[in-house]
């Protein structure tokens, strides 16, 4: 679209704002308006245009729009903060590859990394001797150039390849073993290094589903409970003068407050949910259908706050994919599950 025509569209949109009933994205797209007569005729037989088995995609008419309410929602996610736990097979495989590598690489030259007769050099020598003169820290007592080098496979039940064991070894290795005088430190002088924080947090132990620091290696999704007690993603009607992503931003703000640092990923919806309209016996509209388009958001900091929200929400939860499946109805989950990552 040329720049001039874009300006023209904006101007005409302002002029016809009062009577406009077309949404913003339809207005800018190529759209053939139906004549008033045709529209009236189509409204009369609106129920014929429902999707049937013979015709799953009925023609788009102006009247069909009246049967549905367009809504925009947001799926706010917290990306995983930790790497996942490796499977026992992966651990064993990586361990085996390390031993194979040890058989093929050139010997480790510690002079390249430690200057002679320095504290670091002495420190390394102490640990090297303790490991049985093996340079690698995590392959156990395995002499790659020795007589038994062929015996490189792990035995059943061996814990040598455990992640937990390797973590302990590395923590032990990080301790400084040399005193300030440049001598080997006594066991009571060794200061243990600070341990990394636990993968399982306080929120995991108490199963506090409102906290963001739970399930650190999984993606969490913000789920809210409406006034009718139903769990859902926050969503609201799209006014005719707004785009989907603008509504999604507004919905998030009105539902969960402004105390969050969020990022809406792109402007396109990642999932949609259609509820079919209901008709009376005399083919008049009983209840409008709904088309909800979900955008994807990421939360970087902050926390959801439902106090004084405008959507009448009661409660919120941060849930993983499996927990969502239990909270949401089957149709609802089925329509959004494909946007969810495995982890």
């Amino acid at each position, binding site marked *: 679209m040329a720049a001039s025509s874009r300006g023209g569209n904006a101007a005409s949109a302002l002029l016809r704002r009062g009577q406009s009933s077309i949404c913003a994205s339809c207005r800018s797209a190529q759209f053939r308006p139906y004549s008033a007569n045709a529209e009236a005729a189509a409204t009369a037989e609106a129920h014929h245009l429902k999707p049937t088995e013979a015709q799953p*995609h009925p023609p788009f008419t102006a009247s069909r729009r009246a049967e549905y309410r367009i809504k925009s929602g947001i799926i706010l996610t917290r*990306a*995983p903060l930790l*790497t*996942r736990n*490796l*499977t*026992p*097979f*992966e651990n*064993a495989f*990586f361990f085996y*590859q*390390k031993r*194979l*590598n040890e058989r*093929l690489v050139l010997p480790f030259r510690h002079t*390249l*990394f*430690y*200057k002679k007769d320095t504290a*670091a050099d002495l420190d390394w020598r102490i640990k090297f001797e303790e490991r049985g003169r093996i340079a690698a820290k995590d392959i156990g007592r395995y002499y790659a150039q020795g*007589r*038994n080098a*062929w*015996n490189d496979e792990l*035995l*059943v*039940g*061996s814990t040598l390849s455990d992640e937990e064991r390797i973590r302990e070894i590395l923590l032990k290795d990080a301790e400084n073993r040399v005193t300030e005088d440049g001598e080997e430190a006594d066991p009571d002088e060794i200061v243990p290094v600070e341990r990394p924080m636990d993968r399982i947090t306080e929120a995991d132990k108490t199963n506090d589903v409102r906290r963001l620091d739970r399930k650190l290696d999984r*993606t969490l999704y913000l789920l809210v409970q409406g006034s009718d007690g139903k769990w859902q993603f926050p969503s609201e009607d799209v006014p005719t003068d707004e785009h989907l992503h603008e509504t999604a931003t507004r919905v998030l703000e009105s539902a969960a407050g402004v105390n969050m640092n969020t990022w809406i*990923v*792109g402007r*396109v919806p*990642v999932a949609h949910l259609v509820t079919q309209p209901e008709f009376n016996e005399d083919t008049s509209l009983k209840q409008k259908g709904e088309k909800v388009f979900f955008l*994807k958001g*990421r939360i970087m900091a902050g926390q959801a706050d439902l106090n004084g929200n405008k959507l009448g929400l009661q409660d919120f939860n941060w849930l993983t994919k499996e927990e969502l499946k239990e909270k949401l109805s089957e149709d609802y989950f089925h329509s959004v599950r494909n*946007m969810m*990552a*495995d*982890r």
Partner: protein
Amino acid sequence: MTALREVPRAGRQLLGSISHLKSCQASLRRCASTEAAASRPTIPDIEQESGLTAPIVTREDVQIVAPRKRASQRTHELPHERYRYHPPKYYRGPLHPVQPPPPSDPVARNFTPGPFNLPRLKHTFHSSVASDIMTLTYQHTPPGTPDTPERIRLREWDDSSPYMKNRPKRGPRGNDVLFPLEKDITWRNIPEIKAIHLAMYLPKAKKNRDHIIVGKSVLQTITGVRPEVTTTKASVAQWGIVKGDRSGVKVSLRGNQAYEFMDKVIHLVFPKIKDWKGISGTTGDSTGNISWGFDATTMQYFPEVEANYSLYPSKMISGCRFTLETTAKSDRHARLLCMSLGIPFYGKLVD
């Protein structure tokens, strides 16, 4: 002939009504399919649990009393099976019946061990970055939109001469290189890190060979891969360089090594650079490879160099060129990948 072939069928239709060998009524029929549907199979079609999560053999299953002791007491290698496969010494082409095993197979002559871990950056990429890139670059085409034909970039022959028949098409005018076309990103072609190339140019190595040794040791320390020495390609009298001089070192990292190194650069090196604005927005070779440079002071921010900086002659440490090779086909997509991994760009973005 066709009429004759139809005769038996017509006869069957005529006689069918009076034949006593009729098939039984539909209501009384017992079909195997209906019975199968009625009784649910007890065994599920797809295995629910992954076999990788739990070890298949446990200690309880093994009858030996002390396996570790028994293994340690064994003085000789276990006897092999009678036939030991030796991969062919030479690769004789894709059509030869004897093919060498892949380099991941321990019996292969070119066996390279690995992988040794699953890089942290790869975890991030697969869990959040990949899906975000797909969402960001999604282009909606309404159903029923006809496909736009691909732009023909090769020039056709105009058939003015009979010799032009079946000739391969000519390349574009002016430049004989066809740059790759940028495809829309789908789940099949999300840009990923392919390789990282580091190169140092050391012109002072002509006077003092030690520059090569220091450059090699710096690159080997930070990457863990043995670098190659490069030579000058052409003589230039004004610069005092002669063709064939050993004047630099380079190293390439691929796969997991590239991911690990990129992680180190993004999270340990970039944050330490003083007054760093980011990567220039004009970088890139328009086929999805982003390049930048590290100066000599930046090299000491690599943790391996930082740990024993005093070991190196500080005046001999030189900067290096850094090329990030991605699977993206355009700079735009490569930059999107870099930004989502945490590399900022500054200035005007040029594609």
